[in-house]
């Protein structure tokens, strides 16, 4: 299977989107996109929107991730968990993602920088009721974050 490349950001892709969904204790985010890679990218952008702040004017910080998981939901959680770790350990945020998928092997080249004025911290990404479904908006899911 040939890898599929996805390079668009949310702003460039009107078919993708995210919306905060009320959750009593933590944060939940509805995410949709035309395909799985768009969904992943959108989830990341939505997550960084939740934590607030903005990227500083310093040098861009590219990072690469390689992930293999048994299903798409686990791949989504693992991808976002990597971003949570980079945010906590290096205060990084990302706004450009190039993703490729071969089966359930995900390669991500992403680009970002140090976040300044970050107001909130996402501490973990959960599997709570996590299911990626086909809908009229393409692929859609709701992800709950521990804050």
């Amino acid at each position, binding site marked *: 299977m040939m890898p599929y490349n996805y390079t668009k950001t949310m702003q460039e892709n009107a078919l993708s989107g995210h919306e*905060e969904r009320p959750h009593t*204790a*933590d944060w939940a985010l509805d995410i949709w996109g035309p395909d799985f890679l768009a969904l992943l990218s959108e989830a990341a952008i939505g997550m960084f929107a939740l934590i607030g702040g903005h990227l500083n004017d310093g040098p861009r910080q590219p990072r690469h991730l390689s992930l293999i998981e048994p299903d798409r939901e*686990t791949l989504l*959680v693992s991808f976002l*968990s990597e971003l949570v*770790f980079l945010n906590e350990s290096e205060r990084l945020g990302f706004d450009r993602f190039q993703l490729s998928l071969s089966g359930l092997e995900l390669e991500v080249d992403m680009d970002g920088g140090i976040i300044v004025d*970050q107001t909130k911290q996402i501490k*973990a990404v959960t599997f709570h009721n996590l299911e990626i479904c086909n809908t009229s908006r393409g692929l859609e899911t709701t992800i709950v974050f521990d804050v």
Partner: protein
Amino acid sequence: MKINLHDFKKIDEFEWELPESFRSGMRAPVHVFATRQLLEDALGDLSIEQAVNATALPGIVGHMVVMPDVHQGYGFPIGGVAAIRVSDGVISPGAIGYDINCGVRLLASNILFHEVEGLIERLSFALDEACPSGVGVKGAFPLKGNELDDVCRYGARWALKKGLALEEDITRTEEMGCLEGADPDQVSQRAKERGRTQLGTLGSGNHFIEVDIVEQIFDPGAAQAMGLQLGCITVQIHCGSRGFGHQVCTDYVHDLQEAVHRYGIQLPDRELVCAPIDSQEGRAYLGAMRAAANYAFANRQLLTYGTRQAFEQVFAGKVRDWHIRQVYDITHNMGKIETHLVDGKKVKVCVHRKGATRAFGPGAPGLPAEYTHIGQPVLVPGSMGTASWVLVGTQGSMERSFGSSCHGAGRVLSRTQAKKEVNGETLRRKLEESGIVVRAGSLPGLAEEAPQAYKDVDSVVETVVGAGIARKVARLIPVAVIKG
């Protein structure tokens, strides 16, 4: 499946049962400790559905317990207790939570509020300085070499060895501040990396340090044993295992996704994944969870050290006795191996408490000598700006709730809704007008934790007391709040 009030059987004014027959796959009934009003509130989100889901955990005994401060979490409700047989049951990281050993510590003083009222603002600055809080903050105790492993193994006792604790702090901490069987080798390098720089920090979210006044005493004997005096100031510290515990839970919830298939365990929610307690995976998680729990005990101990420094800085030479002494330190996110009576027989169980406090009654093993006759202190912080409570466990809690009680007020508004309804700056001004000094890292974060986002803590306490699973000792009211 929608759950309605009429699906419950009323046991008494404060306890309701959702029978095992309610939905297929339930292995135990759900017992909710609530007034009718609190139960109706709980049915407003997914709390009770999450409790029903949790009854699918293999080996659950008796009933799934739901406290009156319950609210929706992820997988397992916050305010839930599940006792699971050790012999053939499972352990579930998601049923314990990400912030392993999130808990509360209460410190008491002989300082009368009216004598130091003019110094409270200075105290709040000193506490803010001595106890780092907020997003991305680092602690003043960087760990070198294998020191983190020692923290994992010895918890608050590590701090005692370093001269950062008093012997009395240790004896007045649940499990003497150290869970036996912690295994740092079962903790990922990533968790250690997250934890290495965060020891001695409060963090963000709903964690806080609060200065209170003892406003009312209900049980003078118990209050005296705890050193609580009317009109004197106390300090509550609420936090947990920081990024260390979060990463431990993240790692094991991930790894056990595959294990449930291998063990043929069917669950309604992937966040509840689990492994037999007596399995390689179960033992590994227990070892890692205990390491994170010990990290949290050490963390609250170092924040206590910082609090003592702040008290000395502000009050030394200004009041006769500025020292603060530990009342108790309790956990409300933990899996503990305990023995409880189930259908008249003693059964060894792993009690999963998530947003629920251990509340052992008088004479229970493991209590400090001075509390043996009164029962274990149960610390119930209210929402910011409202009262907090000091309770004690009872024989009733041993019989009805696996030695457990409530842990706080419990949220009713989502964070999004709270931010829509409350302006952080207005809230700070209102709190200050009512005599509460506020130090907050983030105003939107302050708005999310507004009093109106929570249930009425007094109703929650009246419920656990009415149900007989706790007894009142004292009521505290806040004068200063430090939030990340």
